[in-house]
């Protein structure tokens, strides 16, 4: 078991003929994934990755002809929101968007579109998903992770790798690692993933790595208090980030809550989350919790 992706996932890569898209599609294929095709409008009927996979014009074709149910997006920022909507419209179940730099207005629209379908969006501007030993849908370095029972949720890329490597150093593998992205509008928030991990029989404990800004960690902590029984180990990056560097007035007060690291950590503790002060102690803290 795992969440969102596993060895049976049938993956397409939107933007497979681009530089980033072809490089990472090849990496996913090497990881042993079932990459069933790519989508590049106007290049349908061709092949990609040295003839290894077919290219389709549309996600609808890829869904119909190749049975795709997971999509990985490397489309440039100006067109990425459209690619997300296309995948959702075609009925792709899990859409992972790696693209960085998508205009916020485009994402507000895409989020609204996806919400009205049965698809789930991860990202954008994220490292994607990794179910060690089964499937990699994104750009995480597969070799640092091991199959196991810890679910990992993180806003950041390299800090996720740091946490995963600390877990592995303690002999702990991961069920699924999810990089949700740090953009203002993202498809899947922390609390949604907490529930998925709670429902996953294989996951024993959850690592949740947040950052300053926004109120997602607060919402997740609130949700965890009443809905999540599995232990959650949390860290918030940015304890030393200078105050007042956030954007203007209005952004800071929308939630009505304090968005500093200290405030988030205190709130998470209050909700029963085990909060780690030092980023070097994530792995060892999980180990100690599981020993109890």
């Amino acid at each position, binding site marked *: 078991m795992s969440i969102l992706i596993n060895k049976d996932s049938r993956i397409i890569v939107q933007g497979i003929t681009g530089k980033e898209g072809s490089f990472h599609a090849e990496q996913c294929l090497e990881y042993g994934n079932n990459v069933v095709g790519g989508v590049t409008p106007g290049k349908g009927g061709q092949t990609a990755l040295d003839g290894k996979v077919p290219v389709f014009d549309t996600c609808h074709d890829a869904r119909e002809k190749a049975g795709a149910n997971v999509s990985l997006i490397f489309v440039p*920022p*100006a067109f990425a929101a459209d690619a997300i909507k296309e995948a959702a419209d075609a009925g792709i179940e899990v859409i992972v968007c790696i693209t960085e*730099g998508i*205009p*916020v*207005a*485009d*994402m*507000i*629209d895409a*989020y*609204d579109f996806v919400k009205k379908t049965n698809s789930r969006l991860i990202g954008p501007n994220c490292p994607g998903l990794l179910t060690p030993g089964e499937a990699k849908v994104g*750009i*995480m*370095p597969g*070799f*640092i992770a091991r199959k196991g029972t810890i679910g990992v949720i993180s*806003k*950041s*890329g*390299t*800090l*996720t*790798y*740091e946490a995963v*490597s600390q877990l592995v150093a303690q002999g702990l593998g991961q069920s699924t690692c999810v990089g949700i992205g*740090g953009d*203002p*509008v993202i498809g899947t928030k922390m609390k949604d993933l907490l529930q998925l991990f709670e429902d996953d029989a294989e996951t024993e404990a959850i690592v949740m*790595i947040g*950052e*300053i800004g*926004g*109120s997602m960690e607060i*919402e997740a902590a609130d949700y965890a208090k009443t809905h999540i029984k599995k232990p959650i180990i949390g*860290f918030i*990056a*940015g*304890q*030393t*980030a*200078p105050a*007042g*560097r956030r*954007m*203007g*007035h*209005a*952004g*800071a*007060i*929308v*939630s*009505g809550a304090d968005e500093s*690291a200290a405030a988030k950590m205190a709130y998470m503790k209050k909700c029963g989350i085990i909060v780690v*002060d*030092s*980023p*070097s*102690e994530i792995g060892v803290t999980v180990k100690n919790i599981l020993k109890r």
Partner: protein
Amino acid sequence: MKIHEYQAKEILKKYSIPIQDGVVVDNADAVESAINQVSTTFNASQFVIKAQVHAGGRGKGGGVKFSSSKEKAIENAKNILGMTLITPQTSAEGQLVQKIMVAEALDIAKEYYVAITLDRAKSKNVIMASTEGGMEIEEVAEHSPEKIIRVWVEPAHGLQGFQARYIAFKLGFEGEQFKQFTKLLSNLYKCYINTDASIVEVNPLVITEQGNVVALDAKFNFDDNALYRHPDIVEMRDTNEEDPTEVEASKFNLNYIKLDGNVGCMVNGAGLAMATMDIIKLKGGDPANFLDVGGGANVETVKNGFRIILSDPNVKAVLINIFGGIVRCDRVANGIIQAVKELDLKIPVVVRLEGTNAELAKQLLSESGVAIIPASGLADAAEKVVAAAQGAKN
């Protein structure tokens, strides 16, 4: 990206939003003619001199002055132009005032607050309005949150007439002002959407004694990701308002923010960069900067990163913390070796490389003969760099 008040008002004007108007001046010789121009164009006998800096809280720092006559206006204008303005939102050194707006003074009957921005929790735009105009909205939010009205806009439908009316009723608008306000709000929303703003804030929005609804001040932030479709807005960028080192860093696609400590950091990824600053602090040190070299850490980025970190004379030691995923550590190591040699570094450099080809990278560093302190793990790296910075200081 931020812009000045006078630029914000130019944009509002294009959307038929009534503003407190005026003339912008950037040298003392032009002050008098500007005041005469405002006097004739807007039929004004009293003026407000407003410093044009990006930081808020200008009034508190003495950057906004009411002037009851032309003589008073000239005096205030000459004092404000060229002053170093310190407000709660500037750095401690303050911000040089290079431009002022000579504005018509209006007779204000009542002040309001209106803003549009993204509500991240709902992934929708929200309109916020309050009768407590002119105050800092954070204070209103803290002390009387019930006085802030919030209305969320459905992305697929846009702002609806009934929503604008709801806000107008809640703010207590009546008659002619009610009509003016709902029209203004609808135009403000159009403006926010069409310009890809991340915030538009009118504080205060006023009703004048003559019964007109007018934007007295205006603040915009724009979504950097969307600037490619707004060349006219990019034209408005004023790099004089930005930290010169941060501007320099942005030219090399480096994300740099200067801090007050003495331990320089170079890290790939914003989250890991913040975590690295955090652990330096936990180990008793003080980070000198935030620097994210991004996904392409090669010889050039490492060199430019060093240059930017070392332009801060407070830096006594540097920590390089790279977790290679796609980035190959051996390439980063070669970059570090070359940079240290070329730049003839005199201060201790602690290097922690993890991930893809990390072993090879460590070997390259130790064989290179350059004076680098290798570290393994986040805690070890932080301890070593803090000790090095303290040693260098003593």
